[in-house]
C-alpha cells in the first residue's frame, strides 16, 4: 500500500502484463471487501478500451469497482484475459455475489484515480501504481 494523506494508493507487480492486471483486480477487491477462498459462482464478460496501457489499467480497475458497487459482484479471478496493443482488454471474470453476512466490507472506494498512475516494466516483470479516492 502507498501512503497518501487523504486517500489510499497501491503498488502492484506482475510477471507479465496479464498477471499485473489480474493482481491489480485482486488487490483492489481486497481493499474493498474481505472475501478470501470464495468459490466463484458467476461469470461475466468485461471489454475495455484505453488510450494507453496506464489508461487501460485504470479503466479495467474501474470495471472491477463498478462490478462490486453497481452489480454487487465480488471479483475472484479471470477465466480468460487478453490484452491487445496495450489499448484493448477482453476478459471473462469469475465472481461471487456480495453477501453481507459472509463478506466483511473494508473500504468504500469512490473511484480509481488517474493521479500519479503509472504502468511500467520493473524487476523482470511489470509494476503499476494507482491511488484510490476514499
Amino acid at each position, binding site marked *: 500500500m502507498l501512503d*497518501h*494523506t487523504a486517500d489510499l494508493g497501491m503498488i502492484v507487480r506482475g510477471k507479465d502484463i496479464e498477471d499485473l492486471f489480474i493482481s491489480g483486480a485482486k488487490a483492489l477487491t481486497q481493499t474493498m471487501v474481505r472475501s478470501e477462498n470464495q468459490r466463484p459462482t458467476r461469470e461475466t464478460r468485461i471489454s475495455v478500451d484505453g488510450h494507453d496501457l496506464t489508461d487501460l489499467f485504470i479503466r479495467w480497475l474501474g470495471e472491477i469497482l463498478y462490478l462490486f458497487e*453497481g452489480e454487487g459482484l465480488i471479483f475472484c479471478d479471470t477465466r480468460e484475459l487478453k490484452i491487445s496493443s496495450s489499448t484493448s482488454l477482453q476478459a471473462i471474470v469469475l465472481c461471487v455475489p456480495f453477501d453481507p453476512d459472509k463478506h466483511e466490507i473494508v473500504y*468504500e472506494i469512490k*473511484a480509481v*484515480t*488517474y493521479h*500519479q498512475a503509472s504502468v511500467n516494466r520493473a524487476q523482470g516483470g511489470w509494476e503499476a501504481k494507482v491511488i484510490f479516492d476514499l
Partner: protein
Amino acid sequence: MDIKLEKIDEFRWLIPRTGDMRVPGLIFSSSELIDAVKEDQSLVQVRNVATLPGIVNYALAMPDIHWGYGFPIGGVAAFEINEGVVSPGGVGYDINCGCRLMTTALTADEIRPKIRDLISALFRDIPTGVGSSGPLKLSKKDEQKVARKGAAWAVENGYGEPEDLERTEDYGTMPGADPSVLSERAFKRGSDQLGTLGSGNHFLEIQVVEKIYDKRVADTFGLFEGQLTVFIHSGSRGFGHQICDDFLKEMTRHVEKFGLPDRQLACAAITSDLGQRYLAAMACAANYAWANRQILMHWTRETFLKTLSISPRELQMRLLYDVCHNIAKLEDHTIHGKKVKLCVHRKGATRALPKGHHLLPDVYRNVGQPVLIPGDMGTESYVLVGSAIALEQTFASSCHGAGRVLSRSQAIKRAKGRSIGRELEDKGIIVQSRGKKTLKEEMPEAYKDVSQVVEVVHRAGLATKVARLRPLGVIKG
C-alpha cells in the same frame, strides 16, 4: 519538485508564476500550518492547477489544503467562460459533498442523559457505512426527478418543510441539470443510496453550542449558548462518484490537447459540448446530494421526536443552512473592475457570500451566508459568516474543514493499543461507527486542528466566527 513559496503577509503565501503556470498560486495559511503543507504534494497540485487554460487571478488554496488527486483538497480556481475549462477532478468524485446544520429549541443540559439513547436510535434509523443502501428504492423515473429537482423533490415527497429550501445553498436545486446525459451505471448506483450517510469522514453529530462569538449574527442564525444542534456531513454517494468517473474518462481523451501535467486534471472547454454535458450531469449529482441531506435531516427529526417523546413544537428542529464544498458553479464576479461570469471550482472549499449579496435568502441577507466548518469527530465545529473580503480575494470562498495530516495507515499505527471510542467517551463524546477501522482512521490526531484552520480564515477576514459547536455524540459509517 521544489516549489518556491514567498510569504506575503501573516496569512498569505505566494507561489510565483514560473514555467507553464498561467497565474501565480496563493495559499491562505499560518506559520503553524504551512510546514505540514510543504511536506505533502499539495503545493505541486496548486502549481498544476495554475497551468489550466482560462484560469483567472490565482490558483487558490484554503488553510485546510492537503494532498488530493489532481486538484488539492482545499483548492479554489475560477475560469473564464469563453477561454476556460471545467474539470471533474476540480470538483471531486463526491459531487456536492457538503454540510447541513440544524438547530433545536432544546438545551444540551436537558438532553444529556438521553444522548446515548439518541445516538443508538440514529445509528439504527440512518443507514450508514460502506455501500450502505437505504429503505428508499428509486425507479429510474424517480431518480431523474431527484436529479432535476434536488431537495425540492424531497420536500414535495414529505421529507421536510418548504422553509428548509430557503436555507439551502441554491435553494437545494442547481439549475441546468439534465438527466438525459447520465449513464445507466449512474442510475444503477444511485437507485438505493438516497438517504444514506456513507462512510469515511461522513458523519451525523449531535452537538452543543459552546461559544457565541458574534451575538448579532448568531441571533439571526437562531443560535444560543448551550443549545443542542445536529450536524450532517454527506454527499451524492455512488450516483455522484459514477458521474465524475464517467466524464473524467471521456475527458482524458483531451489531455494531450491541453498538455496537462496530471491526467487527473482532465478537463473540457466550458463552452464545448462535453463541458456543457459535464455541467448538466454535475448539477444532477449536486441535486441528488441536496435531496440526500434533506432526507437524512427528516429522518433525524423523526428519530428525535420518537426517542424523546416530544412534539415538533417542543423540538423545533430547523435547518440553519446547507452548504456544498465540492462543486463548480457559474457565478458573477468583478475582476479588475469588470463584471464577468466565471466557472468557480471549489474542491474542499465552502462558498462564503457577504451580507447584501443577491444570492442570499431574505432571512440572511442582512448578515451574510452561514459558513459551516466541521471538525473531526472529537473536536469542535464552527459556524462562520461570509465576508466582502472573500468576495474580493477568493471568489467568495472559505475553508471546508480540518484536513487530514495523517494517512489512514499512519493513523492506525498511532492508535495501536488504544481504544479511541473509550478516549472519546472520556471527553464526553459517544460514538457509534459501522466500520471496525473507522474510529482509528478518523481519530482526532489524524486531522489538522480545526481551530487553527478557522483562525486563519477569521483573521484573514474570509469569513468571521459566529459560534463554536462541541460534539456530544457521533454516528459514522
